[in-house]
């Protein structure tokens, strides 16, 4: 029948890794946020695919939860990035290092 589930898995894994790569390389807070979004969506792909595979809706419902939460997360994130900019005049996450060791 349709596309075997492994492919979805590979796809989601790929997206997850891309997001992770973004997190590790990007210094801009917003980029960081986007990469996190990617990773969350990788999870969503899985949920939908597996939900199809298992023939129950749990996964799909969960993916909706995830999106909602992702949105909320971004909202909070943006707020924090804002005050970050206010205090450090920059959105470079590696600049703020007053707390360490």
């Amino acid at each position: 029948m349709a596309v075997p589930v492994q492919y979805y898995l590979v796809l989601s894994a790929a997206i997850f890794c891309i997001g992770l790569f973004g997190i590790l390389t990007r210094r801009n807070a917003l980029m960081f946020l986007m990469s996190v979004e990617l990773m969350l969506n990788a999870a969503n792909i899985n949920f939908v695919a597996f939900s199809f595979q298992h023939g129950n809706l749990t996964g799909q419902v969960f993916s909706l939860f995830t999106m909602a939460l992702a949105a909320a997360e971004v909202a909070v994130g943006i707020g924090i990035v804002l005050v970050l900019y206010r205090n450090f005049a920059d959105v470079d996450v590696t600049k703020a290092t007053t707390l360490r060791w």
Partner: protein
Amino acid sequence: MMPLQAPISPDWLALTPAIVLGVFAMVLFLLDSIDPDESNDGLLAGVATVGTASAMVVAGVFLLSGVGAGEGVSVFNGQLVVDGMALFFTFIFTSVAALICLASIEYLAGTDDIAGYYSLVVLATTGMTVMAAANSLATVFVSLELLSLPSYGLVAYLKNDRGSVEAGMKYFLIGALSSAVFAYGISLVYGVTGSLLLPDIASALAGGETLANLGGLLGVGVLMLVGGFAFKTASVPFHFWAPEAYEGAPAPVSAFLSSASKAAGFVIAFRVFTVAFPIETVAGTIDWVLAFQILAVVTMTLGNFAAATQENVKRMLAYSSVGHAGYVLIGLAALTGQGSGEIVLGAGMIHLLVYGFMNTGAFLFVAMAEYWEVGRTFEDYNGLATKAPVACVAMTVFMFSLAGLPIGGGFLSKYYLFAGAVGAGVWWLAGVAAINSALSLFYYSRVVKAMWLEEPNGNLGGIDTRGYPTGLYSAVMIAAVATVLLLPALGVFSDVAFEAANAVLRLGP
């Protein structure tokens, strides 16, 4: 004591604590929206305190009257289950939250949008209570986020304080990463088992052929879940946010995160792993006990050794809280099946309870020191006892109780954890814990040394000028009294804790 089975109907009433908290959060919003401009600190703090305290009372009553003894009351088709463990942890969260709200009045004086602060605290507490009861990975994830999002805000609450903002940023970024990992882990587990309800997951795995086919996938998923919990409990390697967040955040928030939020992380860890992934079944594929053993060793060692060389008391407490996460991880790391797991699990729960009071108290004392503008380093605390002896007695109680001396409940719970490790045959884990514990005595006693043994170096003026902060001071005192009383009176909680641990473990296979 024997739980007298109080059948509660309708069953959703078992969620009263969570409901109470939610309602009070709304009340706070309401008050704020009525007159947003001039904020009445006392009123808001009072409302928040009353709310959390009443939730605590309800939880306590439920706990002792045996609501949710044994299997517990399952709500919403088993999405949530209110059993002994849920109520026990609810009690921890709410009591800590109450202390925090009480203590924040003076600390936040002068900052704007106080209502937001309190409502965030109450909401986060609500999230925790739901986490305690979460019986499905879905509810786990949602409640976890319900806790996390307010926490980010709370950490960054002092918008004009660079430390607070930076701490919030780091906490948020690591948190986002972890929740992504967590969500992906959930998706994999779901993929393997086709369900999110913990008992169903267990039964799906029970057969064994699922494991045979998709063991690897499950393993990856489980390890990612471990990552999610490690983030909440501030365990290595997901602990990096903790020192910064605890140091940068407002001291009450640090107390809140390091005591309650940590406990919340543990309660889901306890439940998910004991219920969904009984070690007997999955040991062949993914020996999460071994994983937690490794995490426990690394976490407690890193936490304590790093704490030993700090100059800043708050940061020392932050690292020590990482170390304590390591101790409590023994509760999972010693579920080897040999010996009785209830000892370690129960001891872990008790330790989190006691820790809730002594660690909160310690951070609140730091808050008081900041309020007095004493300073943050050990040297700044020199001779504090000459000015504020009673408060210093309280701090001494916290420190020695954290170090595991028989002046507070920390002694019993900590040593019983070690004993449990020996009983489970992982004596080497107990050995490592012992070394760490001895080291921790060293750095905790540095605080005591500074307060009692050293001479003042002239930075204690603030105590006279600013006087005693009533709310903060009383919160510290309550915490101290509770810590001390928990040594002789631990029996009240230990019984329910061990019953709860039993119940959870019996739910497993």
